């Protein structure tokens, strides 16, 4: 188990680094999929099958496709041979690092490493029994997640409308441009 975890995490992290360092954009997208797959494997290792399948369905089956389409729409970006670093890499590196520290601190706060101190982490048996049904009930119970659930749908709606508004004028402009 431990060895499996270390191997999968190593694959995930290495491919995540490659995503930002590889010059060929398409290869970067492939490494991104590999890194997503690693995360899915980690979920499966945690016996959270639903999350693993979601990771596959949404991130590899949909988001990656969207990213590749986006790459294909960028004119002549494919032939680029310039370095993936620009003048802001130091700044963005700093921001990512501080974000990592922040998230790490929050996680440690909620689930302390020392199990004796752990108040937040529930025993494992409670977690594994039919989580999918619990999730479904939680999504729609008034005292649980129903508000985030409806907000998610509003968010998706806004994303859809916004992207159509942004993407549509491009079509018209391009049509005039080309003909």
């Amino acid at each position, binding site marked *: 188990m431990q060895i499996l975890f270390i191997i999968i995490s190593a694959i995930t992290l290495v491919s995540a680094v490659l995503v930002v360092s590889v010059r060929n954009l398409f290869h970067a997208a492939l490494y991104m999929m590999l890194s997503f797959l690693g995360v899915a494997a980690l979920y499966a290792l945690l016996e959270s099958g639903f999350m693993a*399948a979601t990771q596959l369905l949404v991130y590899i089956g949909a988001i990656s496709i969207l990213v590749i389409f986006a790459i294909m729409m960028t004119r002549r970006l494919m032939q680029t041979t310039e370095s993936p670093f620009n003048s802001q890499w130091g700044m963005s590196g700093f921001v990512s690092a501080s974000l990592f520290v922040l998230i790490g601190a929050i996680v440690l706060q909620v689930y302390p490493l020392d199990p004796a101190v752990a108040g937040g982490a529930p025993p494992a048996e409670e977690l594994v029994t039919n989580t999918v049904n619990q999730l479904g009930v939680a999504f729609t119970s008034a005292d649980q997640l129903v508000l985030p659930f409806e907000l998610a749908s509003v968010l998706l709606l806004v994303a859809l409308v916004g992207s159509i508004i942004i993407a549509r004028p491009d079509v018209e402009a391009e049509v005039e441009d080309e*003909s």
Partner: protein
Amino acid sequence: MDLNTALRELRLLDYLRLLWGDAPWVEPVLDLISIITVSTFCLLIVIFLIWLERKVIARMQDRIGPNRVGGKFGLLQTVADVLKLLTKEAITPVGADWVAYNLAPFLIVMTALLMWAVMPFAPTWIGVDLNIAVFYVLSISSVSVVCLLLAGWGSNNKYALLGAFRAVAQLVSYEVPMVLSLIVPIILARSMSLIGISEAQVLPFALLVPVSAVIFYISALAETGRTPFDLLEAESEIVAGFHVEYGGMKFGMFFLAEFISTLFMSSLFATIYLGGYRFVLGELFNPNYTTGNLAGILIFFIKTFLVYFVFIWIRATFPRIRIDQMLNFNWKFLVPWTLVLVLVVALLDRLVADSGWTVRTLAHLSSNIVIALIALGFARRRAAREKLFEEEFGVAEEIARPMILGSDGHDDHEHDHETHGQPAPAHD
């Protein structure tokens, strides 16, 4: 349990489990046996499926079909084809992206095989009874979209890339009605496990929610790229689409994956909508009837091959549709009506949940028929309107609309964008 009963009830794995005890290596070895059995079965049955397809289509088109190799019925025709593929030279086209080009045929077969892990062939014949089996199948099949993109991109060929983009547009579009229509049987069964769905079908769900079954079937046709949705490999337009640069066995792998996933979709349809391994007639007349493994596997395959036969039948009957028709049909007909269906079934099943199977069946069936009639009515009105437009202006609406919107004609325009990209030649 002795060896004899184990053989008679087809429960060899259980017998081995008893025989070997519970050492830590036993479960992995049993898993390995079942995986190799299922995978080998899939690979070998494809040889038969290809022969069946050629023979059936030939008979439907009043031809004889394969009749030379391997006796009167040409049974060994496919074997000969495989041998031919094996002796071909392996070619990697110049400028191909080596990793993507070689990864795609592997990955597509892997995804086609992995889906079988959750398929219940018989009551105790199942790789693994996941509680999210339907969701697992959908997520694995969504990965196969990536394979097509890899193949199209890796080949360094315009036809291949064009075919891959078409294929991806088609597959992601039809994934939406497929996913949504599968929610209906899950609501009825209150379970995502395929065993759970099979056990919940006192009557086959195809009788309760025929509209959902039809929508699933149509999107399964599109997801496997079969006629009339085979425009991702339209020979007359883009040669062979995403696999134009593949030869020999690498091409064979795409072919193999297509047949495996078509058979899988048939068996998924049989399991979710026709009761899978259960013999409904027997259960109706004899309440104590239980399906054994042997009967279960027979019934499962009879149902699967009936569904598969309809796949072939459709292929021999329908012409290929255009890409705009394909996408319009999906987004403007299937998806809205699937949403309506999901809403109606979700509300209705709550109301009739406590009132016996007869009431439930009748309620769902009648609501489905009403939805189907309304949907068909809308489709007819639309067709009539389009016909009127064509009579008045002498040109079909879907061709005229882009002109009105200000672009230059349908086909030329598409051509400019997709095959030349930047600077388009001044042609008009």
